[in-house]
């Protein structure tokens, strides 16, 4: 039973409570760095690292932290891990560090991390907080990888640096530029809405078949 509960905490971060598409958190880095798949993946993993360890520490100290000053304390914890990530990246993957630019230190104000620390890790057990962080991080990374892949393929004609199409392919330059990111995320959110509306309509029709509802219009 405990296992099933933990798995649920993980899986919710992927779709139902995906930080970007359902909670609208973490949009700044999601749109800014996804000019290629590798950049999106790098940012996703870095943010997941910070989210995971911040959740662990915040959950471990939740009994000792006074409520009034909890937000500054969480911020210091998160900022410490962001600095660790910055230094690791600068030392071991300098090309990625240069590509991500100021968005690496900006992970500290990524609403997902402070949001999960405040809303979940400060009120739940260590095990649950760890799984929650992993789920949210993976969900975030999946969206970033998807955005990065689409923008790189359409906007550059490449994937992971390899050219996909022949020399006659004219890439849609707009996708790599800011407007492309905005329009793409708008369309993605619209698609998810469409899926959810269809799902609700199906459930409504099922109920109607079994004569559980008699009204005409679904809510």
């Amino acid at each position, binding site marked *: 039973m405990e296992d099933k509960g933990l798995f649920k905490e993980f899986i919710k971060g992927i779709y139902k409570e995906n930080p970007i598409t359902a909670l609208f958190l973490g949009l700044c880095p999601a749109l800014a760095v996804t000019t290629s798949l590798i950049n999106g993946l790098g940012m996703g993993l870095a943010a997941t690292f910070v989210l995971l360890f911040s959740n662990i520490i915040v959950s471990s100290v939740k009994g000792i932290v006074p409520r009034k000053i909890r937000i*500054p304390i969480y911020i210091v914890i998160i900022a410490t891990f962001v600095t660790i990530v910055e230094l690791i990246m600068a030392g071991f993957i300098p090309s990625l560090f240069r590509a991500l630019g100021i968005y690496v230190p900006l992970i500290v*104000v990524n609403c997902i991390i402070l949001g999960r620390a405040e809303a979940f890790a400060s009120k739940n057990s260590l095990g649950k907080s760890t799984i929650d962080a992993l789920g949210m991080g993976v969900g975030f990374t999946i969206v970033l990888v998807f955005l990065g892949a689409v923008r790189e393929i359409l906007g550059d004609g490449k994937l992971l640096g390899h050219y996909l199409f022949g020399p006659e392919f004219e890439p849609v330059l707009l996708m790599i530029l800011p*407007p492309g990111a905005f329009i793409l995320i*708008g*369309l993605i959110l619209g698609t998810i809405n469409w899926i959810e509306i269809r799902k609700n309509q199906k459930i409504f029709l099922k109920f109607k078949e079994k004569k559980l509802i008699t009204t005409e219009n679904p809510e």
Partner: protein
Amino acid sequence: MELKLLLIIAVYSIFIQNFVLTRFLGLCPFIGVSKKMSSAVGMGFAVIFVMTLASIVTWLVYNYFLDPSTSILKYFSSEGTAPDLTFLRTIAFILVIASLVQFIEMFIQKTSPSLYRALGIYLPLITTNCAVLGVALLNIEGNPSIGIEGKFTFIQSVVQGFSAGVGFLIILILISGLREKLELKEIPESLKGVPIAFITAGLMAIAFLGFSGLTL
């Protein structure tokens, strides 16, 4: 010459490298607050205020404590050289911003209750606004497109902080005006609300791309 550079910084921060539409900073309040013009304007002014003050204080902290070439810590060390503490900028800046916002909120609450009622609820949100920490970091990164290689000077930082806030305010006013109008239009069900707001922002971003050809 100096004044011309300041004006260039201002134009860059407001139009050519707009914080919201070009640098993707400040998107959370962009979506959360832009449904009504009045709340957007309130948030915009609060952001200008915080960004300018944050630019000032973070520059002072970086210049006199973290950057080894100008740090005052060199007077406390035995060899006369200050330690390179630039890696602490993330922690230092976010603590400065969080404390600053706290003080501003308390100050406004005491001195001007009417202003507090107008701006007060947005202030805690501004702490996690990427744009505030973003401008503090940009002040020390320099801007090669304008010709500033290292960190900005004090006045340049203040100008960039203020102009970035102004750019943010302009965008908020534009998008909230558009969203208020969109509420009354017929939009496909799946796109209502946030998706159409993002697509609108994308179209605005295309318009602002036009500024990128501006050479000063």
